[in-house]
């Protein structure tokens, strides 16, 4: 599904990622853990195509395609979704309008029929109910005046409606209380299945109590230090990053 080989990337000529090898098979959820400044968010942005992140070497293959060669909107249409650490406000743009425009842009790119307002509303209401999110979320302007928790829930709602095949969650758990954390986790768990893969990026182990990953990778200094099963997250929680980085060095 996702195959990252020797990926190195810089921001303003400062190397951040220094050779990452990572494979996420179809249907699996992998966690990326690491201390602040280890390159976690950079990895998320490189995968989703943000400008300003320069890939200096290596390759990313998604579904057999060279992911780095295509535009962000085409990556979205191909099924890649990034849940932002800091979701962006769009003043005056209604959430429902935004989501329908996005969904239809993706459907158009895939050669599928677009949804009209009624069909979309039906779909959106179903997802809202499932995620126990109040319906007025659709009427509000995208992320404007949302609390931190509401912004993250909105990311999960978008993910549920857009139905990605590869979701990248960039510290979606940061700043969330336990209830909000559960909603995020349920949102991801509900999508789990043979056609869904995810990269869950997090600083803390607690999210992984709710989203149990197939594999855990520890990222530090722009490299993957260790990989293992879910138990690696618990080991990390017990030891802390400093010890693990020291051990690996």
């Amino acid at each position, binding site marked *: 599904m996702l195959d990252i080989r020797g990926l190195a990337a810089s921001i303003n000529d400062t190397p951040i990622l220094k050779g990452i090898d990572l494979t996420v098979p179809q249907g699996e959820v992998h966690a990326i853990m690491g201390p602040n400044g280890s390159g976690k968010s950079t990895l998320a942005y490189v995968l989703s195509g943000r*400008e300003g992140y320069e890939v200096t070497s290596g390759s990313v293959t998604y579904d057999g395609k060279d992911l780095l060669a295509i535009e962000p909107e085409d990556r979205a249409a191909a099924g890649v979704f990034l849940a932002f650490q800091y979701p962006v406000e769009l003043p005056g743009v209604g959430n429902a309008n*935004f*989501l329908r425009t*996005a969904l239809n*842009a*993706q459907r158009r790119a895939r050669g599928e029929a677009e949804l009209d307002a009624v069909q979309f509303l039906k779909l959106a209401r179903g997802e809202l109910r499932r995620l126990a999110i109040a319906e007025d979320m659709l009427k509000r302007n995208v992320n404007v005046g949302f609390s931190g928790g509401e912004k993250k829930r909105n990311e999960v709602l978008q993910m549920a409606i*857009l139905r990605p095949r590869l979701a990248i969650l960039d510290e979606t758990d940061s700043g969330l209380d336990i209830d909000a954390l559960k909603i995020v986790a349920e949102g991801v768990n509900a999508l789990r299945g043979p056609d869904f893969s995810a990269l869950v990026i997090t600083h803390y182990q607690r999210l992984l109590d709710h989203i149990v990953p197939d594999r855990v990778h520890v990222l530090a200094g722009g490299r993957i230090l260790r990989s293992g099963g879910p138990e690696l997250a618990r080991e990390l929680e017990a030891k802390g990053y400093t010890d693990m980085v020291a051990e690996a060095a």
Partner: protein
Amino acid sequence: MPAVTETLDTVSAVTQSGYKWGFETTIEMDLAPKGLNEDIIRLISARKEEPDWLLEWRLKAFAAWQQMAEPHWARVDHPRIDYQDLHYYAAPKKKAGPKSLDEVDPELLRTYEKLGIPLKERAILAGVEGADGPQSNIAMDAVFDSVSVATTFRSTLMKAGVIFCPISEAVRDYPELVQQYLGTVVPMADNFFAALNSAVFTDGSFCYVPKGVRCPMELSTYFRINARNTGQFERTLIIADAGSYVSYLEGCTAPQRDENQLHAAVVELIAMDDAQIKYSTVQNWYPGDANGRGGIYNFVTKRGACRGARSKISWTQVETGSAITWKYPSCVLMGDDSVGEFYSVAVTNNHQQADTGSKMIHIGRNTKSTIVSKGISAGKSNNTYRGLVRMLPKAAGARNYTQCDSLLIGDQCGAHTVPYIESRNPTAKVEHEATTSKIADDQLFYCRSRGLSEEDAVNLIVNGFCKDVLKELPMEFAVEAQKLLAVSLEGSVG
């Protein structure tokens, strides 16, 4: 800021292909010789078969104009205009006032068809704004260069008692009404361009809504400049008598030409006790090409007088066209408890210049006004909001709220806000808020990561920015306005 850099590149590469209204109609024209003098004014007046009082009025305006100097206080820059190098009268040949649509030159009708404005009442009943729009019910007056060519739905309106006709006909058929109100809101010597208009205006629309009548349909005028080297000087006069209501919309286009064309219109609105006038403009005159060559100079005076108690005048404008826009739709709030509103979206791209805003003059007690201005600048354009709020000594309890927001696309454009506030009554309240923002890279990336193209993302963000104004437009035109915004900013991102 890589996305913005790319934006700048494409802005500079934009061509005028975005202006799809730039065609020219080949039609036989009746042109007055170039130049402006008393003889030309007498000729215009004679062609219009005007009464003596109006000719005298024009000549007085001309005399005043000759003593005036072109104003240069606005933040716009243009070469000197040679007022003697223009035609002041241009009319499609054939007689000026056709009795029915069958008498209108078919070439002219085709032009309006190309503009998407079916003149035939049948077509209008079938819905003007594209197949997906709501059913529309709009009476329309079409002004081609200097002359009104067709007014639809007149009989329906007459039944309701509403007079809606070319102002040249109103002069002939309702001389008392015209004489009573003409120049009472915008005096003939109000300013340089208004004086010029008063001297040479050729046509425009006239509307009178009698007491207690709610005008049964939207009224609309479509202005089109076609002839080369002509100025267009239309004059609109709308009177809403006590307790009446009218909603009026004007739209404007012109062919694409290398030389600049002058448009100096005057619009006067009068609202009596409890009357309401809603005046909407979608202005899309040719803006010039990517290098700033050609385009319309739009120097317009628009003013409404809330003469009666509890009367209300509301201006809504979407300005995407013209090389230069110089325009300040205003309200003079004389009646106690009267209300003035101004909602504006002004978009400038490439080398366009806009200096626009509003004046709210509070005279009566408890008068209220609202100004919401949204300026969007892209390319190398300059966009200025200039507004005046004046509270006179008797305006006890008066209130104004002003909000000016500017959105910048790229870093070679400019946005400026110049508010003037004068309060001479201690109980009056004036509030002013202003913001300036840029379309941020993170907003664009957020949208693109959800599957939107960069262009769609810009449209979405711009429409969101303008929402408070667009929702004030009559529904039929809100869709058109959104499309216009998209076309005007086409190519402003990569």
